[in-house]
């Protein structure tokens, strides 16, 4: 009986509340993406497996494969071998 609330607690703890767009590198090598927001342009480098929160109020990201995507500020971007999937 005690386990049920504990399990629920654990389930909810994994619930991450997004406050910014999250870039995650799930590929095998480090990548560099260019981020442009109202404060200007800057590069974000991601080690394999690393993730970084960027631009809470929206920005543009240039991916390693040359694609440019606009982010509203709440997305999670998974970068894998230069391409991205956005959730």
């Amino acid at each position, binding site marked *: *009986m005690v386990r049920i609330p504990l399990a629920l607690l654990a389930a909810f703890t994994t619930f991450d509340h997004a406050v910014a767009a999250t870039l995650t590198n799930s590929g095998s090598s480090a990548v560099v993406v260019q981020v442009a927001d109202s404060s200007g342009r800057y590069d974000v480098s991601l080690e394999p497996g690393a993730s970084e929160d960027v631009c809470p109020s929206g920005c543009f990201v240039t991916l390693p494969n040359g694609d440019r995507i606009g982010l509203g500020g709440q997305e999670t971007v998974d970068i894998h071998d230069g391409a991205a999937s956005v959730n």
Partner: protein
Amino acid sequence: MRMVRKLTGGFRPALAGCLLMVLSLGLLPSAIMAQQQPPAAPAAPAPAASAAPNDPLAAARVTIDQSERQLKSLSGLVDQAVTDDARLVDLKGKVDDLGRVVLKTSVNLRPRLEEIAKRLTELGDPPKEGQPPEAQEVTEERNQLTDERGRINAITGDAENLSVNTGSLANRITELRRRLFTDTLTRRSPLTYDMLSEAGTAIGAEVDDFKRTTASWISFAWRIKQLQLLTAVMLSIGAALVFVSGGYRMLGFLIRRDRADADPPYISRLSVAFWSTLISAMALSSFLATSYFFMDSFNILRPDIAPMVSAALSIIGLVYFVWRLAHAVFAPTEPNWRLVRVSNTGAKWLVTAIVAMTVVNSLDYLLSAISVALGSPVVLTVIKSLVASVIIGLILISMSFMRPVLAVSGNPDELGRPWPRFMSGLLRMAGLGLLVAALVGYVGLARFVSTQITLTGAVLVMMYIGILSGQAISAQNSFAGTLIGQYVRRRFKLDAVALDQAGLVAGFGVYLLALMTGIPLILLSWGFQVRDLELWAYRLFTEITIGNISISLVGIFSGVLIFIAGLFGTRWFQRWLDGSVMARSHVDLGVRNSVKTGVGYLGIALAGLIGISAAGIDLSSLALVAGALSLGIGFGLQNIVSNFVSGLILLVERPFKVGDWVVTGTTEGFVRRISVRATEIETFQHQSIIVPNSDLINASVGNWTHRNRLGRVEIPVSVAYESDPNEVMDILMDLAIKHPMVLHNPEPSVAFMGFGAFSLDFELRLYLADLFNGTKVRNDIRIGILEQFREKGIVIPLPQRNLNITVEGDGQSLEAALKEQGVPQPVAEKLDAAARRAQAEKKPGDVDETHGQDLQLKRDRSRQS
């Protein structure tokens, strides 16, 4: 006291209205400014879908191009408006909107890009040399997709550039505004001869201009808009009559001062001050607003005259408001209604000075509004403000020499004492500061300060009165005396305590209203723009960032709301489950209670978790805290946690349920409640004993009614040795079998327990379906036994005691002694005879050591039946 009740009747709506009025007065000057602004920038870009309804790329391209043009025009507008703060605020909003549009356009393109990428991956790379060629269609599709991808990237690239440019323009506007704010206050315009002569000619020109403009407007209005003018005047006079007569008729009793009342309570003084200011100022400002509205809607006002009229109307409202407020606070002619402790003369002079300052300040605003409307040179505004600042400075200095403080005797007619030193010092410093600042050339600063002294002062006083009213309402038991309090009591049928708490809430509401309205008004008068305040409020509610943590009030509020909703939902579900499902399924009461309690905990935990995540609090960061806390819990909350867990085990395992008859340690009684920490056991004497749950888990608990209520009761019976045991057993068995509540299976039985000291002991053992009937059954059977025994002549022996008396020596002395004690003759003789007999039987060697006559008592062992 009746007066108080009437007066304090409705603070809340009154305060709201008053502050609204102040707000409207405060906003009028900004309305004037707004009218002088150049026409607004083009509206935000319209969706360009109409250009190419079927091609989202083309539509996006059109939007981006439009936005680019818009950004250019906005940039040009910013260059024009470098000195106009309000305009810059407006432009900043537009630039931000543009940035959002651009971002949204490119975000909308993203799904298509993903689709293309996915399809291209499916198609694979083009065949290399040596590999078999692929189908023509595949190549074509790949080329087309690659092309589209390139276009999307190009558009997004442009959008990116545009977005960065938008961001930098927004930053530039902010920088401009910041500089503007500091520059205006510190801009120096030294007083020179040239300036004075320029101002002299400008004044002449302005006066002529003003005359011409007003004359032409009046003739225009009279000739062309006569009907409208008259209608507008009639309508606004009608509206004013409605406001004034309606206000006075309905609320007049609130603002009349009772001259006969020598010492009205503070709360009535406050309320009269509040209402009299509020109602009259409201009536006037409504009249002014409706006048302006009618003149405006009938097109009587021309663009050149409208700002002047608006300024004139708003300063009339402002001056009247300050005048009423000053009269309300100082009550120059009615010392007993005064809110502050000043003398009569002091009150009169203070009112005069305050009103004079407001008039000067308002005139300054009116004249500068006229200057702006007529396009007069800036130097004129500077000179007017200089004069106004000098006059206000002089008034402040003269105020510092007044003697307003109530005389030591407390008689307001006497000449008062001077200001406290710091107050007079402050006034002199302020006045001198204004004079020096204005004369040295910092006219902007002097004007700003002098405006703040009157405007901020008035708002502060009003806020202060509001806060005092809040205090008065939340004072114990005072809310019940107010009209609203009485209404609330009647309407919601509250008792005294609840009403007092309602008063506390009402008082808090008044505070909140006073602060929430007063602070924005002060900020507005300090040069902040409405848009700034809106932005702040928006930020305050959506995102407050402290370091890395960002808190959102709306989030927290919605979290709390969701939690409360969850709580209510759980309660409802509990009731439904208990009352409908389980009751109809004939579930045992104890199980129902366990399930209900368990569901309750689960619901609260769920609601809490959902509420926390809805409030935007990252639970993973809480997990860290929980990890650190668990150590502390291990030590500090050990008992409580163990009790809680024990409580859950009790609910699940159910060694006993609510309603059971339990015995634990020294406690015996019925279980009344199993809660988080402890279980409540009610003894048969109706004493509630709270037993910690862990005690119930760790110690042995006896439960009479664990599986069912079946139980055995015993009735011990003793009969005399002369009775026939078989007959007794038959009687007992017969009685047991005949009783309707005694179970036949298991059978009742009679046990012959043993040979007692003076009785034969039996025990009748009965099984009952419900132990709770034990007392009744035992009573019935016992009565039956008694009746049967009497009928059959069976004796229930009483405890018996044999007394053996051994007399030594001659019986004569015993007889004498008994006679002396007054024992009747025959008894004494019998005893004597017995003694002699005993003497004769006694052997010579058996003589006791004791001398004379002894009573040797031999006590029989006795047993209670």
